[in-house]
């Protein structure tokens, strides 16, 4: 426990340092942040153009799809903000600069996750959050305490699941630094997939997101409960509440992968 607190405190120090560094060039910071905001907004413009031609996509209305879009973008955005820097690990492995990190008395994960912390990534969080708020206003859900709980757990579990994919995926940089881009398929690709209703995909693909890389637990399954929709796979209804369990399993798996990765690190020696 004390170790975890120490790691968190160090992570906090590194993050604060990079934020100060980023704000030293305010013009550049605001431009890149707005760029991030626009980049993530582009996906929503596409969805709006699609809805100019139809009232429903896979049987889901625009506010419902916007709910999926907002939750997917918000959770990915938060995970990307906190641990997204890990995707530079491949470059460090190639340069051999991971050596310096491993000899410091701070956990490697805390150092690498905080390394070049990019506050500009908050652009995606802000944009997705705005769409989510809009969708909630439009949907006018009949809130109950249980629904509120499921909603909060969706945001937390979703962030943890995406964060685990970032950490677990970056562990592969230790083995194959060049193939690092594969991870994007699961993070950014996964988030794009979750922006649309599960009903539009082939059943086997949806099954893969429940039992394989458990992205369905990020927003699809809780959304079925919150929006009162039928499950295209016909899974037992407790699956809709199982996101926190899935998130914990993901975190455990990511931790295991990360440890294996660090142990198998061979320095380039340069």
């Amino acid at each position: 426990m004390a170790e975890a607190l120490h790691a968190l405190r160090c992570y906090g120090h590194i993050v604060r340092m990079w934020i100060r560094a980023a704000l030293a060039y305010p013009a550049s910071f605001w431009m890149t942040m707005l760029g991030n905001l626009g980049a993530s907004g582009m996906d929503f413009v596409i969805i709006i153009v699609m809805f100019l031609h139809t009232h429903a996509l896979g049987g889901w209305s625009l506010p419902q799809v916007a709910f999926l879009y907002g939750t997917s973008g918000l959770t990915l955005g938060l995970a990307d903000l906190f641990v997204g820097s890990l995707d530079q690990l491949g470059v460090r492995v190639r340069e051999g600069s991971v050596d310096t990190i491993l000899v410091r008395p701070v956990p490697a994960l805390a150092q690498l996750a905080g390394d070049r912390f990019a506050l500009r990534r908050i652009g995606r969080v802000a944009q997705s959050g705005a769409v989510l708020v809009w969708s909630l206003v439009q949907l006018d859900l009949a809130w109950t305490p249980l629904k509120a709980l499921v909603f909060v757990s969706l945001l937390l579990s979703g962030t943890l699941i995406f964060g685990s994919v970032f950490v677990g995926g970056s562990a592969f940089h230790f083995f194959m630094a060049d193939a690092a881009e594969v991870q994007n398929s699961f993070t950014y690709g996964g988030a794009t997939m979750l922006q649309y209703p599960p009903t539009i995909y082939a059943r086997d693909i949806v099954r893969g997101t429940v039992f394989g890389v458990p992205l369905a637990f990020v927003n699809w399954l809780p959304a079925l409960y919150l929006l009162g929709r039928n499950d295209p796979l016909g899974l037992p209804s407790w699956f809709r509440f199982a996101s926190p369990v899935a998130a914990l399993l993901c975190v455990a798996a990511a931790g295991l992968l990360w440890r294996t990765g660090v142990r198998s690190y061979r320095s380039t020696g340069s």
Partner: protein
Amino acid sequence: MYAAVCLRSFRRYSTYRAATGARVFTNTVFGFILSYTYLALWQVRPHLGGYDLSAALTYVWIGQGLLSVLAINDLGALSDLQTRIANGDVAVDLFRPVDQQRWWLAVDAGRAGYQLLTNALVPMLVGGLFFHLRLPQGTAAATVATWAATAVALLLALLVSYAMRHLIALTGFWLLDLRGVQLVYYLVSCFFSGFFLPITTFPPLLEAVARALPFVAVFQVPADVFLQRYDATGTLAALGVQVAWAVVLLGLGRLVQSRAVLKVVVQGG
């Protein structure tokens, strides 16, 4: 000499096998995701934007295939030029008795050639296995003509794309941090080239804007030529638009380049 540069660049890119594999995998995954969204939309609106379902799905996979080849959302080989401008190595390049714009075009062409054989071919084959895609149809002569026109349209698209990316890289002579400019460029390029959705599905005003911009010449024109959306004169007109943009943008690139060179100050030591 430029041919030799092009060949070396082709070889250089072909050494990054793992990275290529990763790229191909990612493009294929996105191809699937986009295909299902198109399927959902085209099931409701079967002839949206003038494409039938099969043409629309082919459009998706052409997009995933050409994303890297035409460098729609990255700088391609010009990221090297940008790095060299940022760290000052460009001064060495300027000593060389070559034309900078042609040199980098040769490097970029080598890159595109390699990616055409890998990043374009593999996702399209995978897409063809899982979805019913549309290949050029009609008489033998018409089919051959379409393939030939597609090849020409692709070459011109690469020229237009190169000219724009060259301009973006050159802004590095004036700006210290290019990330913002690049991000905005990628967004505009992906959206207005019709990469996400064909511009014929845009609302009229947005479609008019897209038609007036050069990005259409990078992606939608070659895709439409391949999908036989034009008759013979239409094809020639579309290729003509591409040529016009290539000439204008390459000319602009020369102008900016000659100005930029004046900015270079070589520090001694």
